């Protein structure tokens, strides 16, 4: 078995059935909760390393960093709780596969390629409400359940060009698709009316382009990067019938990284997304209480303590984000993270671990949680 076929097999085996990330109470409205297309290492570093990380899908220029064929996959579990007014919910647990990456060099040329599958927006929730409806002029107590299982995924194919040893360019093509299985039911309590139940599939399609650049000093002590991304409309179809087009945001990302000492590297990345373009379409058709889409900022920073001799590097990070969807005001998220990793199998494989403390708030709600991720990278 050749090296390439082994990696492709490993990549296919790693392809998850559900490529979605952790959910949130802030993902019930709008398109869902935005995913983080970044590796476990970058997660542990608060996303600060994402603009320089060839195993993350933020900057296509990092594709040029693939010197040999590699595949990575990650697996994450979220434990969270939230409170809104007098309602408190605890013990919510989800397990997802948020990011998978395959990359390699093209035959000893300065060009490399990569393909990744990551969460664009997570749309899994299961919400029940009890209220009163009117039937034939009489009030009837009803229990409604609306559940969505699935999400929007981002399949990126990218090419990187190592123009010089310290200057990388890259471009990516994104296919955005996915689906969510929506279940809606209404039970008429103490009534002879039958239960209403409907299952339907909401599917999504869209495309996007991205490009990036990465420059580093000759000794790699300082790195700078810049990336931009443009996404077309997201077409959503209910039972194969096109229902609406939602404009997806353009985004601009930048990053800076310093190797402070031989053992310490500090990295910071930031992204701005013009999510407000989706507002009009999301509100269309709603007679009341339309969801709003806000432009978002995300800034992450992290510090890694490691050198070549260190088997278990220590990674610490923090990330602040504003979130795109809300009714009354824009929510935000603050994440503190930590992690480590280790090579094994004669250096051909690596395991990375990260734990994130999630703190989200805004629009009258607070959400707290833990996100545990483990990633495996194989370089045959």
């Amino acid at each position, binding site marked *: 078995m050749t090296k390439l076929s082994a990696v492709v097999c490993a990549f296919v085996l790693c392809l998850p059935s559900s490529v979605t990330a952790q959910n949130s109470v802030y993902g019930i409205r709008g398109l869902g909760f935005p995913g983080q297309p970044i590796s476990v290492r970058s997660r542990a570093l608060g996303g600060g390393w994402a603009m320089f990380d060839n195993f993350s899908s933020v900057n296509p220029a990092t594709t040029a960093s693939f010197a040999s064929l590699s595949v990575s996959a990650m697996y994450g579990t979220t434990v969270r709780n939230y409170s809104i007014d007098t309602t408190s919910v605890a*013990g919510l647990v989800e397990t997802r596969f948020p990011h998978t990456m395959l990359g390699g060099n093209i035959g000893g040329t300065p060009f490399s390629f990569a393909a990744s599958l990551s969460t664009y927006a997570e749309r899994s929730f299961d919400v029940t409400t009890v209220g009163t409806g009117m039937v034939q002029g009489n009030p009837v107590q009803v229990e409604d359940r609306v559940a969505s299982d699935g999400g929007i995924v981002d399949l990126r194919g990218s090419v990187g060009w190592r123009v010089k040893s310290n200057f990388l360019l890259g471009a990516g093509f994104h296919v955005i698709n996915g689906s969510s299985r929506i279940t809606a039911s209404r039970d008429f309590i103490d009534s002879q009316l*039958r239960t209403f139940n409907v299952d339907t599939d909401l599917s999504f399609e869209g495309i996007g382009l991205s490009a990036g650049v990465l420059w580093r000093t000759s000794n790699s002590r300082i790195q700078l990067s810049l990336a931009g991304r443009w996404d077309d409309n997201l077409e959503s179809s209910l039972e194969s019938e096109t229902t609406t087009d939602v404009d997806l945001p353009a985004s601009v990302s930048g990053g800076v990284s310093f190797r402070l000492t031989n053992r310490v590297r500090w990295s910071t990345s930031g992204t701005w997304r013009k999510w407000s373009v989706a507002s009009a379409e999301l509100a269309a058709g709603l007679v009341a209480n339309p969801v709003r889409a806000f432009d978002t900022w995300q800034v992450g920073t992290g510090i890694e303590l490691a050198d070549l001799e260190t088997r278990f590097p220590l990674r610490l990070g923090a990330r602040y984000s504003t979130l795109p969807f809300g009714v009354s005001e824009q929510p935000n998220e603050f994440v503190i993270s930590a992690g480590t990793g280790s090579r094994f199998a004669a250096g051909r494989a690596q395991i990375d671990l990260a734990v994130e403390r999630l703190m989200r708030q805004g629009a009258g709600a607070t959400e707290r949680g833990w996100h545990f991720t*483990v990633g495996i990278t194989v370089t045959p």
Partner: protein
Amino acid sequence: MRAPTISRDIFATRAIVASACALFVALACEESITAPGVCPDFCPEAFIEVLDTTLTSSVERDSAFSGYAHAVDGFRMQVTGRDADIESRGIVRFLTLPDSILIGSATRPIVSVDSYTVRVELRRRNLATPGLEVLVHRIPGSIDTNTTFDDLTPYFEDSTIIGRITVDDTVALDSLFITLPPNAFPNLETDNFVTGIGLSVRGSTPTFASFGTTEGGFATVLTRYVQVDSANGELIAHSDVRGADFDTFLREEAVVPAGDILVVGGTPASRSLLRLSIPPAILDSSEIVGAMLYLVPIAPSLGAPGDSFRVQVDALSADFGPKSPLVASGGGLDSASLLPGVLVAVGSMDTVALDITDLMRVWQADSSRPQSVMIRITPADEGAILAQLFVGSSRSPGATPLLTITYVPPFRFEGE
């Protein structure tokens, strides 16, 4: 020779990998995302819209048909007293009694009759009326399906009473044993040993009682106790039992409403066929959560005093008019299309509301099924009770059948 040792670093790596895997497997074993919604800000904008519509002209080409079950075919015979709005009488003819008794290998003559016992199966009564008394009358053994109510009126006088029993006020289901005197059937020989009895009831107020029949598996039984002359001149006691070979009940004619109306029940039993026209917009593209067919009485329902009866709606597996095969009669449809029906009290003028939701859902799933229904009383009661319902037809001004449908139009989700 020492076993190979694992380096500390390799051991540590393996331990971390194993620990991480164990942690994630433990966490991943649970998936819990169900939570109460906090609306409107944190609820999905899913529009479950419930609509109602009342269709006043959805019933068309409706008709009533009679003759589905006759009293002689009934599983019970319903008997009311003289003071009831409709008087009805039970009549029973027994199998021929023998004129002699076979003892050993010899046939011996009957010397005398000691007594008779009639066992009547009480299947239902009005417990609200105390003091139920069941009376046994002597009637001709020549009764048959041509015998009318009026034919037997002379035989239901007090002078023809040959036995009676007072039923405990708490008993509604029991075997009643009524002893008749030896001379209960004085014309036994001239009647060729065929006996007949009539059953009537009395109560503190108008009441009724339903008795078992041969068709229902609870036939009335006559036992004769006799003295037989044995071969050596001694008299020996003997009994012989005869079941009914004909039993039914006869009712007086009642004044029924005239006009082009729908009728259900009675004897012989009537049914009403209704053909419905459901708007395709509802049937084809919505989910029906409730459908009620309302029948508006144009006169109080008739029947035994204090009785009630169940009116039900049956789906048709094919619409051939009055002889359409019903689903309940083995029309080949699934049990989901069998509907429970509704209880109606005798004398009631209340609107009869029949739930046909499940039936409408069957029609939604299979458009080839006829959108027609047959209204009738419970099959076990057809031909067995007096109850009769009179409701307006599609041609009855102010009393046309109504159809109310509660439905959810196509589901809409956020952004749709």
